[in-house]
C-alpha cells in the first residue's frame, strides 16, 4: 500500500468520523427562516364570544375566537371598555401570536386596574403589529368584577 492509499484511507476514516451522517441539506446558519406575514383576511368574523374567561376583583380576561385575520404574526387582541355602554373610553390589549396554519384564532385580553364589584361594558377588536385594526365587528357585551 503506497502513501496515496494510506492518505485516502485516513481521509475516509476521518470523513466517516466527522461526517457521520450524510451532509443534510441544511440551511446556512446565516439565512434566517423568517416567515413573511400571511396575507390579511378580507373580513374578520367572530365565531365564538366575546365572553368573560375569568375575573377577580381587579382584573379580567376576555376571550373570543375569530377567523384568522392574517397580517403580522405579532398580533394584539383589543378590548374597548368602560362602565357605561356608550362610553367605552378605556383600552386594553394583549399579545397573541397568529398561527399561519390555523383558520381560526383565539384572542385573549387581560384587562387590569379594574374596581371590585363593578359592571364593565366592552367591545373587542384585533390589530397587527403596526396598529392597523382588523376591523372586527363586535357586539357590546358586559362582565362584572367580583
Amino acid at each position, binding site marked *: 500500500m503506497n502513501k496515496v492509499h494510506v*492518505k485516502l484511507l*485516513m*481521509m475516509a*476514516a*476521518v470523513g466517516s*468520523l*466527522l*461526517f*457521520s*451522517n450524510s451532509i*443534510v*441539506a*441544511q*440551511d446556512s*446558519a*446565516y*439565512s*434566517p*427562516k*423568517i*416567515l*413573511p*406575514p*400571511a396575507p390579511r383576511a378580507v373580513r374578520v368574523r367572530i365565531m365564538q364570544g366575546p365572553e368573560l*374567561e*375569568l375575573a377577580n376583583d381587579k382584573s379580567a*380576561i376576555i*376571550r373570543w375566537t375569530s377567523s*384568522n385575520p392574517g397580517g*403580522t*404574526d*405579532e398580533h394584539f*387582541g383589543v378590548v374597548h371598555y368602560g362602565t357605561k355602554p356608550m362610553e367605552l373610553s378605556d383600552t386594553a390589549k*394583549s*399579545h*397573541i*401570536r*397568529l*398561527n*399561519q*396554519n*390555523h*383558520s*381560526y384564532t*383565539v*384572542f*385573549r*385580553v*387581560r384587562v387590569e386596574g379594574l374596581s371590585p364589584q363593578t359592571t364593565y361594558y366592552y367591545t373587542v377588536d384585533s390589530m*397587527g*403589529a*403596526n396598529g392597523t385594526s382588523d376591523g372586527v365587528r363586535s357586539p357590546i357585551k358586559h362582565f362584572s368584577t367580583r
Partner: protein
Amino acid sequence: MTRVRLTRISVVVFCVVALCMSVTGGKASAQNATSSPEPIYNPYPPGILPSDLPSELARVLREVDSVEAEAITQWHAIPPPVVTGNPPILQNTGVPLVEILGKLMNYDRTISPNENRACASCHMPYAGFSGPIPSVNLTMIAYPASAPYRAGKRTAQRYTYSSYFPPLQYNATQGLFFGGNFWDSRATGYLTRAPDGEQSQFPPVDPNEMANPDTACVTYKLSLAPYRSLFEEIYGAGSFAITWPANVASICATPGGAAEFGGSATPVDLSPGDRTVSDNDYLHWAQSMSAFEHSLSVSPFTSKFDAFLAGKYKLTANESAGYDLFKGKGNCNSCHLDGRSTAPAPTAPTAVDTGVAADVTPVFTCFGSANLGLPKNPRDSFYYETSPDFLGFTPNPAGFTYTDLGLGTFLRSGYGSSGNPNSSWTQFAPTSDGQMQTSTVRDVAMVPPQCPTTEAPGPYFQKEFFHNGYIKSLKQLVHFYNTRDVYRMEVESGECPAGTVEKVNCWPAAEVPQNQDMTVGNLGLTDLEENQIVKFMETLTDGFTAPFPDINTYTGTCMSGGNASTQGNSTIISAVKLRELMKQH
C-alpha cells in the same frame, strides 16, 4: 562573590519572593488545577447551595478533561490541509480543523483564571449542552463561577441549533425582533455575523462565570495551550506574536470584577497593535466556536422526528397525538415553528393544522422572544449575592428587587445585560420587557442514556427549564402553558394557599406581569393531552438515526421517585422565609 554565584542567589531570592507573593496574594499557579486559593464566596443562606456542590463540580471537571483528551486525539487524527489558492484555503480538512479547534477550546478549563471552568463546565453534551449538575438545576439554578461560589442569574442554554439564529434584526414588516443568542438576545452577532459565536465571547469574561478580567487573558491562555499550533495553522502564524507584560499571568489569575481593576475591561497592558491581534484572536475564538456548534457534533438533525420527516420512523400513538396537539389545540407551533407551510385557503374548522411539511430541517423556533409570565424563582442564586467577595466584587447589589426584564433590559443597555449596539432599537424596550428567547424545542428532553428521561419517577436526569429554572419537568412546562391563567395567584413561590399545590393548581405571580403573551395560559388540554405533548417533545431528541457524539460522558447518578407534576417541589423555599434568612445571614 562571583557573577555566577550572585546570579544564582538572585534567582533563589526571586523564586522565594515570587512564591511568597503567590501564596499571600492568593493567585493560582498553573499547576493548581482543581482548587482555588481564594476564600470561598458564600453569601447564601442555608439551603440555597446544594450539599453535593464540591463533589459535583469535581465530577464535571473530570468529565470535561476526558472529553478534552478525546478532542486532542481527534485533532491529531485529522490530516494536515493543503494550503492552496488565493485567498488561501485549507483544502481537504479546513472544515474539520476549524470545528475541532472549537471543540478543543470548549472543553479547555485552563481558559479560566482558576483553571477550573471550561465553557463545557456549564454546557455538557449529555444535557444537549446545557447544565450538567442535577442538584444545581434543582436549587441555585445558575452555575458557580471560576471564583466559587459567585453565580449568575439564568440557566445555561443548550448549544444545539443556536447557530441557526440570525444576527439580531428588527423586522419592520412583522414588527418583531429576530435572532441573536442568549435569553435576552444580547449576543447580536453585529461583528461576528454569527450570534452563537458572539455568545461564546461573553462567559469567558463574565465575572459570574469563567471570570477572566480581560479578553486578552483568553488569548494568553490559548498561547499556552497544547493546540496553539492548530490555532496558528488556521488563523495565522502571527496569532500569538504579542509582547505580554510581565504581570500577565498574575492579572489573568485574578477573577474579573475585582476592585483592583477599577472597572477596566483591559487590565492587561498591551500596545495598540498587540491589543488588535488579541481582539482578532477573540473573533477567531467566536468563529471556531460557532463552527463547532453548527457541526454534526452539536446540531446534527438526528432525532426521531427527523427520521419521521424522512419517512423512516412511524410515530407511536401518543407521539402522533402529541404532534397533532402541538400544531393544533396546543398551538405550540405558532412560535415553535415546525416547518410546515401555510395552506393557501384554510377551510378546516377549529384549530386544525392545514399546512403541509415544507421544511425538512425545522428548528422549532420563530427566532424571536416572548414574555411567558413565568413566576419569579426566589431560589435563584443571584438574589443573595448582595455583599462583596474578598476581591471587592458584588454580583447583585439590588438583591431581591432585581427584576429580569430580558430583551427589555438589553435594549436599554441595562444592568445584568450588555451594551445595545443599535440605538434605533431602544424605543422597543417597553414592549419587550419580560421577553426571553423562544428556545428551539429540539433536545429539550436530551438526557444521559442511563437516566433515560427528564421526568420523575424515572430514573431521570434533573434539568432546569426556561430562563430562571422555575420549571423542573416537561410535564410542568406543558401544564404551565396550559393552565397559567387558570391557576394564577398573586402570591410568591412557596406561598401558595393551603389546599393548593404549587405548579399543579397554583402558579405564583408573574415576575413581569406586563407584555405577557396570551397565546398561552388557558389551552384547555386534558392531563392526558399534556402527557402526549411531552411524548412528542421527546421525539425531538438527537441521537436516534446516529449516535449523538459524547452522549456517554455522564459519570454521575440518576434520580428516581416522585412524579413529574410536583418534581422539585421539595426544594421550594418560601420567598418570605428566604428574605428573612437573608436579613439574619
